[in-house]
């Protein structure tokens, strides 16, 4: 649906040149929810703005729905932009227009009459759950409501794709959740391809099917969310995953010599990690029954992504050395990676 081929963008500022996007190639499929994650300044906004040519790349090509945007004239580019909606962190609503007028903005002066445009805008407001707010001005709406109006506006021209630049970064966790739910819903119901720019791994985890990790203008890692979480290739990806877990705390505990980590000779600290989509099984109770080992869970961070368990667990396992070995082997056969963090 959206394809970037070797896209680069350099800004010339007083401080010198900034390569905001460096040779990024990306293929976002029809109906996909694609996350782009990176730290501040990584070039995420620039990248997404290249997708509708709000920022024209210095080199490279951009294709949307089969058409090469980078080859279009002004007039055709405007039409192409209507096929893509965009929402922003700061909502960017028209302050002088009511919710209804904001949503109708992309429609008026187009093919529709005022009456038809208003009718459509009303339907969209109702779709985002704001039937009762059509006469409200943005200053009278909460952040979450503003973003809903912005989403309705972005949907006005029945776009094939929706670009979201940090759409939830200005919202509290609960509102974030409800907006993400709405995005998921319109992806499922309307089949819209969605690009989600974020710096929060939690957002990626919650709604994305695929993810691209950006660092210093480059797309350093890309893949479906499950395998990126299960087998991150780059350290920056691991850093992002760590932000969604408390697993890394174990390192700190060991370093400070916490009493939990003072092991007896028949104890080991093990890290179990789901690396492939496996059926959910009561693995912990199975190994303790089968091999007669005790499993004391210190940290666990298990999540469900695309219907499969994913995550890690750190436990103190105690028992006879041979039994622990056998339990570790058993887990590995079940596609759970086992790593010895500390030996007693």
């Amino acid at each position, binding site marked *: 649906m959206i394809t970037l081929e070797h896209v680069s963008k350099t800004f010339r500022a007083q401080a010198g040149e900034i390569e905001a996007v460096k040779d990024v190639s990306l293929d976002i499929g029809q109906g996909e929810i694609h996350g782009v994650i990176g730290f501040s300044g990584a070039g995420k906004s620039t990248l997404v703005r290249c997708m509708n040519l709000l920022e024209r790349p210095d080199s490279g090509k951009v294709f949307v729905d089969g058409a090469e945007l980078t080859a279009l004239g002004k007039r055709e580019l405007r039409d192409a932009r209507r096929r893509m909606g965009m929402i922003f962190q700061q909502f960017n*609503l028209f302050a002088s227009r009511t919710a209804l007028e904001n949503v109708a903005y992309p429609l008026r002066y187009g093919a529709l009459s005022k009456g038809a445009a208003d009718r459509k805008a009303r339907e969209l407001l109702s779709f985002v759950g704001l039937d009762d707010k059509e006469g409200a001005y943005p200053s009278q709406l909460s952040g979450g409501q503003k973003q809903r109006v912005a989403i309705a506006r972005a949907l006005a021209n029945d776009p094939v794709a929706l670009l979201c630049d940090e759409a939830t970064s200005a919202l509290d966790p609960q509102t974030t959740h409800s907006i993400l739910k709405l995005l998921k819903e319109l992806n499922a119901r309307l089949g819209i391809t969605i690009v989600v720019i974020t710096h929060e791994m939690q957002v990626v985890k919650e709604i994305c099917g695929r993810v691209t990790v950006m660092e210093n203008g480059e797309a350093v890692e890309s893949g479906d969310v499950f395998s990126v979480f299960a087998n991150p290739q780059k350290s920056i990806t691991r850093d992002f995953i760590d932000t969604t877990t408390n697993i890394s705390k174990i390192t700190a505990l060991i370093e400070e010599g916490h009493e939990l980590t003072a092991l007896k000779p028949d104890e080991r600290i093990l890290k179990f990690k789901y690396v492939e989509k496996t059926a959910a099984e009561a693995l912990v109770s199975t190994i303790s029954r089968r091999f007669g080992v005790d499993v004391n869970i210190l940290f666990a961070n298990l999540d469900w992504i695309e219907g499969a368990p994913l995550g890690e667990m750190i436990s103190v396992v105690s028992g006879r050395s041979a039994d622990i070995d056998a339990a570790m082997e058993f887990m590995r056969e079940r596609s759970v990676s086992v790593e010895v963090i500390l030996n007693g």
Partner: protein
Amino acid sequence: MADFLEKLMPNIMYKPEVYVRSIKETLVMLGWSGAVSFLLGMFLGVVLIVTQRGGVMENRAVNQVFDKLINFFRSIPFIVLLAGLIPLTRLLMGTAIGVKGAFVPLVFGTTPFFARQVEAALAEIDKGVIEAALASGSGTAGIIFRVYLRESIASITRATTITIISLIGLTAMAGAVGAGGLGDFAIRYGHQRNQIDVTYVTTLTLVLMVSVIQVIGNFIARKNTR
């Protein structure tokens, strides 16, 4: 009643038609030069904004030319402008005196001032909002009329109010050098013939005009503030 007024302002009552005519002249000067300055200033303010760095019609050369031109005319005192523009006024209007003669210098004195204020009003609009409009397929005309001008109605109204008020001051000054109107009336009778009531009544009339404009301006601005 008439007796009382005659006592209070004998010189005005002696020639009320002159007084009324000066008010008319002032309003005519205000109307014509105000309308033309409004359109020109609007145009220039929009040009300055859209051609600036990162604007929707970015054009450094055009931007710099207009920017310098506006600065140049803004730095000339109005009284100097009145004299300096006489040849141009004669060329354009056929005369350099009277209400007609005041038109050109008034426009030159007002437009740059108003253009700067329009520029400032438009600059207040968040870049993100412009971007949202662009992303939804708006073209340059759409951005100018449906976003910039529409979103800044309140601040442009305030700018217009200030500009009209300062223009009233300029018409009085133009009057002093032969343009007619209330300024001329006050100088000729109030000052030169020492008819103090003329000075007072003229002042009062101007204060009233300014107040009415301010009230209307505030009302429109308040109606359009969200």
